[in-house]
Structures are given as structure tokens and as C-alpha cells.
């Protein structure tokens, strides 16, 4: 892939603006509230777009196109099943407790609702996971640009990290959020033409269906396996993902999706920066509207790639690598100009993914580790200074992790596995914490620990394919094993939390006001226009999502 002057010009203009936004925000960063929480002043459309963009890192653009090529339209389950329902739930039911409790972070909510040890467990594991995901995304970016454009991987990593560092130091969370919104529109303008031109080249949706028929039958599935999202989910053998509908709906749609969208501070932090309770609640709901159409931007190009490109196009060094689906499509259909825009959108998504992790890290570090355990009674200026130090240290640690990823690919796989064990049970804790006043601190803590142990045990006892001969149970695919592991972890956490809570002493109801559903006054929506009411938005989003599922059934 070669770039022209115009492409470099577009990339350069983007960098100038990104740094310019940081510089322009500097004078508004007066207190730690401004730096860590954007002064709780942002409009819902801004926090909403940031809510989905923070999650729109390396995995989404490259990975979803890869899955589109590998699994077809079933990949849309990661949106229409594995994201939107959870986004509706967090907006309507959970946001009142995050925003209303005046906690600075998700771990701090756990301290208010339960106790210090539950918070420490969550804060420390979140901080470590955040740094690793930031480093992994940096490494993925460096390698991609090395492969595509021959850019030196060290230069890519250091330059992008330096830019992210500068704009966060200058403008804090607001900088990160603003750049996430910019990135959102770059992704839309950069990838929409690809989807449009690609689908035209494939002969429209019907043309694409015809071309994907042989792809499915050659792989040993029914002709519609790549273009029908639910019809082949009766048994795991009938679809390329190797998952049946129950594992999909419960494992991905319930446990993993709610565990991420409803408890991960990276995304929740965006909503907590909103200017009012109503804006905070509408954040994930407004985010859900573009989110539900993202499959057309990121999955469709992957499906078109597998339909139009020769099979050999995906083979690199003798191995099939679907991660090249999106770059190959850019190469095939984009002239100079749009190519620069598409690559800028990719760069922006990698960088803002990293920035999202760094801003979540500096907040959790400063409020939940430094302020909580290391230096409780320091002044405002000290926390602000620590936030800046944490930003530098977090960025440096991310770079270090990127190099660890480069040198020991297997260690990273292992770490991500361990992180999935930690995340799987989380939603059970939050669900019981927010909706069952009887849940106690010890219940939550031991529930989380046993849920993580259950996930690890499940992984040890089961296997996939041939390796599973000596194991207790064999799953048809990694994905099925992953989804079922999450179901076991969640259920274990749920049961253990209830049992331990029932034998431990409950907290006084008066302490739980604003933290638990039954003890919190309902939010009044009087005086709010109907189209600004979360419930109305939730219904619209829900109906549209069901419609999309039915259309591509």
C-alpha cells in the first residue's frame, strides 16, 4: 500500500487538531473535578458518542471485519445481542446509582455499597487490566502500520503514545472525550464509502448473499450460514462460530455483555462526566443508536472481502489471517485521498482507545488507590498532580506492555485469559448490589473470588476439539467454551453472594439510600420533554434492535 501527498496531508491535519484541542482545553483544567470528570458538565450527545468510541479500539474495526469474513452476519450478535440490551439496562436502571451516589468511579461505588476490600479487589484488577489492554492495542497498531505502510513499529508506538500523553496532560478527561467524538465521525466518514462502494461491487445485498452461498457450502454449512444471523443456531455444528443459541444469548448476551457495558469504568466514566442525571442516563441510550448500525460499517466490509477477494488474499506466510480483511478492502477500493482518511480513522481509533484506557487508569489510580490507601488526606493540588503523574506512568507502562506483547505473544494470551476470569462474575455482584438490599460486603467479596475461581476451574476441566480428549467436557469451539465459562462464573458468583449474604449481618437500610434500588426515591421525569426521557429512548432503541435481528434472521 503506498500513500500519496494528500494522504499524508490528511493524517497531518488530524494530528494538528488533536493536539490543538488539548491545548485549547488547558485553561479549563482548574480542579481535579475538571481533570478526572470533565467537571460533570458535558452534553449527552458528546458523552454518548464517547461512550461507544472509547470501546471502538483495535478490536472493533480490524477484529469485527475479520469476524465478518470468518463468520458472516452472525458477527452482528456482538452488537444486537452482545451490546445494545446491556446499554439499555445500564442507562435505565443502573446509571441512577453510579451518577446519583456521587462516586468518582465504579470501584468507589463498590466501596459505598459494600466495603474497602471489594473496592480494592476491583480497583487493582481494573488498573492492571487497563494498562495491559492499552499496551496490546498499541502493539496491534504498530504492527498493522508496519505491515501496511512499512512504518517502523517503534516510531509508531512512541509517536502515538506521545501524542496521547500530551493531549491528556493538557485537557484531562475532556480532551480524551472530545477526541473520541472526533474519532467517531472520522470512522463514519472514513468507512461509510467503503461499505457503499463494496456493496455496489458485490451487486447489492442479494448479490452478496449469492456470492456468500458457495463460501458457506465450501466450509460445510448451509448456503445461508454467512447471511442469516439466527437460522443456523439450533446446534453449534450448523454455524461457523460453533455456538448454539442458548450459549450465545446467555453467555454473550447476558453475562459478558452486561459485565462489560454495565460495570467497566472505561465506558461508565464517559456517562459520569455528563452534566445531569438525565444526560447521564441518556448517554448509553443515545450511544446505542449509532452502535446498532456499526455492523454495516465494520462487519459488512469483512463479508464483502471474503465474497470478492480470492481465497489466497488472506494467506500470509502460509497461515490464513482474517485480520487483514479491512486493510485489504481499503487497498482494493480506495483511491488516494479517501485512503488517507480511512487510515486516519484507524489511527484515531487506536489512539483514542489508548487515551480512554489511560484516563480511566489515572482516575482509578488517583481516587481508588492513591487517595484511598496511600495518601488519604492530601489536598486538591496534590490529587491533581498525582493525576498528571499517573497519566505519564500509565502511558509509559502501556508502552512497556506493548513491548512485552511484542516479545511474548503467549504471555499476553494467558493474561487476557486471566482477565476474562476476573470480569466474568462482575455483573452478578453489581446486579445484587443494586437490586437486593440484603446483599452484604462479605457476600460480594467472596462471590467475586469464587466466580473467578469457577471460571478458571471451568477452563481447566473443559477443552476444545482434539485437546479435549482427557477433559471433562468438550466444546465445539473456543467461543462456546468462553461463553459457557462466563455462564458458570456468573452463576457461581450469584449463588455464593446470596448464600454468604444470608449468613452475614446486613447493613442498616439508612446507609444504603441512593445505592440500592428499593431504598432510593424514584427519579421524577416531570418537566422533561418526552423525547428526552430515558424510558422513551429505551423503547425506541429496543424496537429498532429487535427489527434488525428479525430482518437478518
Amino acid at each position: 500500500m503506498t500513500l500519496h501527498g494528500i494522504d499524508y496531508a490528511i493524517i497531518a491535519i488530524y494530528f494538528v487538531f488533536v493536539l490543538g484541542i488539548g491545548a485549547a482545553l488547558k485553561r479549563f483544567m482548574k480542579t481535579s473535578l475538571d481533570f478526572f470528570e470533565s467537571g460533570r458538565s458535558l452534553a449527552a450527545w458528546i458523552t454518548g458518542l464517547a461512550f461507544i468510541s472509547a470501546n471502538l479500539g483495535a478490536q472493533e474495526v480490524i477484529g469485527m471485519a475479520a469476524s465478518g469474513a470468518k463468520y458472516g452476519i452472525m458477527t452482528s450478535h456482538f452488537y444486537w445481542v452482545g451490546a445494545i440490551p446491556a446499554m439499555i439496562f445500564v442507562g435505565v436502571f443502573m446509571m441512577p446509582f453510579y451518577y446519583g451516589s456521587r462516586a468518582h468511579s465504579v470501584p468507589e461505588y463498590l466501596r459505598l455499597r459494600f466495603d474497602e476490600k471489594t473496592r480494592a479487589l476491583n480497583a487493582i484488577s481494573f488498573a492492571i487490566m487497563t494498562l495491559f489492554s492499552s499496551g496490546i492495542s498499541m502493539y496491534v497498531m504498530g504492527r498493522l502500520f508496519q505491515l501496511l505502510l512499512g512504518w517502523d513499529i517503534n516510531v509508531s508506538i512512541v509517536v502515538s503514545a506521545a501524542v496521547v500523553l500530551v493531549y491528556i496532560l493538557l485537557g484531562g478527561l475532556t480532551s480524551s472525550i472530545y477526541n473520541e467524538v472526533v474519532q467517531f465521525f472520522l470512522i463514519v466518514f472514513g468507512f461509510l464509502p467503503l461499505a457503499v462502494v463494496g456493496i455496489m461491487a458485490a451487486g447489492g445485498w442479494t448479490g452478496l448473499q449469492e456470492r456468500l452461498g458457495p463460501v458457506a457450502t465450501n466450509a460445510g454449512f448451509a448456503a445461508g450460514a454467512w447471511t442469516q444471523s439466527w437460522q443456523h443456531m439450533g446446534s453449534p455444528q450448523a454455524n461457523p462460530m460453533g455456538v448454539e443459541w442458548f450459549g450465545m444469548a446467555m453467555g454473550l448476551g447476558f453475562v459478558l455483555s452486561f459485565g462489560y457495558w454495565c460495570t467497566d469504568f472505561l465506558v461508565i466514566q464517559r456517562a459520569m462526566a455528563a452534566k445531569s442525571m438525565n444526560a447521564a442516563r441518556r448517554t448509553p441510550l443515545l450511544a446505542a443508536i449509532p452502535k446498532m448500525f456499526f455492523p454495516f460499517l465494520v462487519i459488512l466490509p469483512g463479508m464483502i472481502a471474503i465474497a470478492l477477494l480470492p481465497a489466497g488474499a488472506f494467506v500470509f506466510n502460509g497461515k490464513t489471517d482474517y485480520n487483514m480483511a479491512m486493510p485489504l478492502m481499503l487497498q482494493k477500493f480506495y483511491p488516494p485521498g479517501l485512503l488517507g482518511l480511512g487510515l486516519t480513522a484507524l489511527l484515531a481509533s487506536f489512539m483514542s482507545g489508548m487515551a480512554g484506557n489511560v484516563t480511566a487508569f489515572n482516575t482509578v489510580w488517583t481516587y481508588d488507590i492513591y487517595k484511598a490507601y496511600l495518601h488519604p488526606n492530601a489536598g486538591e493540588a496534590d490529587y491533581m498532580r498525582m493525576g498528571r503523574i499517573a497519566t505519564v506512568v500509565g502511558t509509559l507502562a502501556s508502552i512497556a506492555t506493548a513491548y512485552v506483547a511484542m516479545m511474548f505473544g503467549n504471555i499476553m494470551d494467558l493474561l487476557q485469559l486471566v482477565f476474562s476470569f476476573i470480569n466474568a462474575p462482575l455483573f452478578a455482584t453489581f446486579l445484587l448490589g443494586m437490586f437486593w438490599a440484603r446483599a452484604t460486603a462479605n457476600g460480594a467479596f467472596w462471590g467475586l473470588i469464587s466466580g473467578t475461581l469457577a471460571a478458571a476451574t471451568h477452563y481447566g476441566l473443559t477443552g476444545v476439539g482434539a485437546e479435549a480428549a482427557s477433559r471433562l467436557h468438550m466444546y465445539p469451539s473456543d467461543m462456546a467454551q468462553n461463553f459457557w465459562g462466563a455462564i458458570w462464573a456468573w452463576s457461581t458468583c450469584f449463588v455464593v453472594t446470596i448464600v454468604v449474604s444470608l449468613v452475614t449481618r446486613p447493613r442498616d437500610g439508612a446507609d444504603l439510600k441512593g445505592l440500592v434500588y428499593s431504598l432510593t426515591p424514584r427519579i421524577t421525569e416531570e418537566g422533561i420533554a418526552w423525547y428526552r426521557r430515558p424510558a422513551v429512548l429505551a423503547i425506541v432503541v429496543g424496537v429498532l434492535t429487535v427489527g434488525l435481528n428479525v430482518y437478518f434472521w
Partner: protein
Amino acid sequence: MSLDLRLPLGLLFAVLGLLLTAYGLLGNAAVYAVSLGINVNLWAGLGMLAFGALMLAGVWLGTKGTKPE
């Protein structure tokens, strides 16, 4: 009060839109063989320009309508 996001957002997309529109109008048309003969730079450029202008118009109307704090 903080920086109105619509300002840098509008400026960025207006600049990028102008650049792509100009490139689409003045550049070599042969490069569009890859994109089915469609001048995608021109279309994308016009779209971005319109979006940028919309954001800037919002900022302008906003400053006219509200009193400075």
C-alpha cells in the same frame, strides 16, 4: 463553561472536506478506477464539508442566542 466541541469538530471537518473536495475536482480522475469509477473523494469531501458547516453554524447560532456568562 468549557470549549464548545462543535468548534474544533466543525473546523476539522470543514478543512478536511475542502481538501478532499478540491482533490476530487482537480485531481487525476484515473485514480477512481478502483472505486467503480465513482469520484468518492468528491462525495466524501462534500459530505464532510456539509457536516463541518452544520457544526460551525450551530456554534454561531449558539453564541448569538445565549448571553455570555
